[in-house]
């Protein structure tokens, strides 16, 4: 029982990353009709926004400590971050410690800009082209983006820890009456889950309750008619692309303490996030979110030792298996509208 609760909890957490990425993908597909293979790269760029901020905060000047030696036996150069000398050691250290949450603010304008540039500079020219062309050009873009990141940051993962306040884990089991230590979950992952719920809620609220959102939703349903009403739907769609990029970027920023970011983390998520979108139903926002959480939970269960013992290798293929089954039995996905991308 506790094992199952634990895996559900874990699945929700895993799923929140999937849901955030799939949400952005679906926003782009639903509004612009573009299949964006570079969306994983946006997630990765978000993560590297956090890395960059942490590097900026850690910019240091060197002083020579004659009492210590470095690996060559020379006097050791001690690095002190500028922020520590400017704001005092304590404030400075706190700033560095909180670099990931700070990176949220840092990354939003960057991601919006990246998104808008990408849409205006490239994606715009592909609205009328086939889905295959869209896939190919964004795939090319994804390669280019990740190689650029690799050029500047190297191939190795870069540790970007969460603030010390979020170290360790919360004992759920003890809180709800199980034995202690049976159901524990790291604080930061809980933060991630809540963060994603807030973002998802925010996006839905934005689409539901603002005039802007209403126009966009109308545009998703019938682009031409909205265009005929004299509304500049293209401009709004551009902003939506920026928004989707920002969602992916934020998902990336917050993900950095969970796994040290590296240049190929976007590609790692790419295939998976497409499976999520397809399972949820192309173009359905609630579907994407639901499928994200659902696949997270399924993946968690498939990685249980008891399950692997029963079906060896199931943890390797569960995601693809689900995708195949859904596509064959219900091609419009869990919540997709009829007719979207169907034969």
């Amino acid at each position, binding site marked *: 029982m*506790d*094992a199952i609760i*634990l*895996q559900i*909890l*874990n*699945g929700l*957490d*895993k799923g929140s*990353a999937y849901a955030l990425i799939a949400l952005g993908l679906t926003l782009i597909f639903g509004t612009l009709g573009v299949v964006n293979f570079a969306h994983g790269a946006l997630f990765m760029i978000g993560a590297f926004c956090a890395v960059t901020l942490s590097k900026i905060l850690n910019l240091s000047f060197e002083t020579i400590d004659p009492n*210590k030696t*470095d*690996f*060559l036996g020379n006097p*050791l150069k001690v690095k002190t971050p500028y922020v520590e000398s400017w704001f005092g050691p304590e404030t400075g250290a706190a700033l560095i410690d909180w670099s990931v949450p700070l990176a949220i603010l840092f990354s939003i304008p960057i991601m919006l800009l990246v998104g808008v540039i990408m849409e205006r500079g490239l994606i715009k020219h592909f609205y009328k082209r086939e889905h295959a062309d869209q896939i190919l050009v964004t795939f090319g873009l994804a390669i280019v983006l990740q190689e650029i990141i*690799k050029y500047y940051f*190297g*191939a*190795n*993962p*870069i*540790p*970007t*820890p969460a603030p010390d306040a979020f*170290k*360790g*884990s919360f004992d759920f089991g003890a809180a709800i009456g199980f034995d202690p*230590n*049976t159901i*524990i*979950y*790291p604080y*930061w*992952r809980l933060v991630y889950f809540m963060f994603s719920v807030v973002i998802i809620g925010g996006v839905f609220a934005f689409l539901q309750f603002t005039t802007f959102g209403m126009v966009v939703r109308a545009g998703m349903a019938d682009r031409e008619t909205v265009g005929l009403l004299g509304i500049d739907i293209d401009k709004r769609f551009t902003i939506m692309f920026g928004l989707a990029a920002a969602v992916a970027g934020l998902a990336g920023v917050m993900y950095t*303490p*969970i*796994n*040290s970011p*590296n240049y*190929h*983390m976007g590609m*790692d*998520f790419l295939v998976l996030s497409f499976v999520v979108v397809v399972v949820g139903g192309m173009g359905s926002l609630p579907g994407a979110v639901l499928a994200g959480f659902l696949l997270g939970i399924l*993946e*968690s269960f498939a*990685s*249980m*030792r008891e399950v*692997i013992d029963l079906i060896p*290798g199931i*943890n*390797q293929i569960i995601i693809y298996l689900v995708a195949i089954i859904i596509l064959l039995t219900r091609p419009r996905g869990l919540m997709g509208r009829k007719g979207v991308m169907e034969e």
Partner: protein
Amino acid sequence: MSKTTMTRRGVLKSGAVAGAGVALPTIFTASSAAAYTNEPTGGSVTLGFNVPQTGPYADEGADELRAYELAVEHLNGGGDGGMMNTFSSKALQGNGILGKKVEFVTGDTQTKSDAARASAKSMIEKDGAVMITGGSSSGVAVAVQALCQEAGVIFMAGLTHSNDTTGKDKRANGFRHFFNSYMSGAALAPILANNYGTDRKAYHLTADYNWGYTTEEAVRTSTEALGWETVAAVKTPLTQTDFSSYIAPVLQSGADVLVLNHYGGNMVNSLTNAVQFGLRDKLVNNKNFEIVVPLYSRLMAKGAGANVKGIYGSTNWHWSLQDEGSKAFVKSFGTKYGFPPSQAAHTCYVQAMLYADACERAGTFNPCGVAEALEGFEFDGMGNGKTLYRAEDHQCFKDVLVVRGKENPTSEFDLLEIVEVTPTAQVTYDPAIFGGELGTCNPGA
């Protein structure tokens, strides 16, 4: 039509010089006078450095390449000579190998066995490399080793830790300086028992491929022999990035030690995740919960950041070793590049030196001669104490380091501290236990 098994550019390069001297174009087919593949006949000899330049191990590959460049510099008499001064064999003169200037070509393995073989072939066929070395994974090492056997050149493995490389997949033309899973287990187990006691319940997470299997097997066997119990062993996909669903159930199982049989990106992520879960703050069975990483790499430990603190593992070599050889190597590497070398760099440097030395001692580049010179070769002064290149399986036997993540690192390189230098005798095993057949050396021609 004469048949050759591989093209021999070495011959041809010199032939080209001769050909150019003739006024009319002469046409002739290459004779099979050469005794072995890519026999160098000019004033230089070409070595092939096959390292990952793209893909997830690119940084490790870059460090290997730095080491090779340093080795070539030293072999040709440049720099401060590095380990050539501490090496017990004094055959190397600093005038290249057998008087020929050492040149090198590089290839990109991409950490894929296909790509690695393609780049190795290109270096052998196009550039006339007489020896291939490098690599950062066992899959690649085994694949390239088989290729070199077939092509008739020597393969000096880089970073490869699987038992298979000199076990079931060993080849007569292939040599490994790096240690293996078995040795990791044998070296680690006593230290673990000393520090954590003999009454421990271990939970293994194992990368679901050959190297993971052999490492799990090695650590299990050696810890169980000292009284540990293995509660569970769960295989994780290579492509896994988030290990939370594998780590979450660990505490419920009643285990008090988590062994992460992961390497590279897998290791960084699984260790980060495990520490995130606060496992090490927990008390299970009235003991502190512990995490073990059988194979450490400093470059990868860097990716895991502060999470490595206090965690035991084994490593082939570490720059903080205080023997003369290590000190000399760290000094020349550090002076040239500004940071200390990794274990991958060390192994690659040593392999290049050992190869050159074997050629000198054999008096030939012929793979069979070189292999003979390396087989059963005992040496010292290369950083791991007295070392034996065992004839039966072409595996080096030397001291193995047990290390621990340092609590208070003084620099970004100072991540691991050496806990124990496990003597060779303790990690030596019978070559028959892993099966496989060495075969006979293949000179190619």
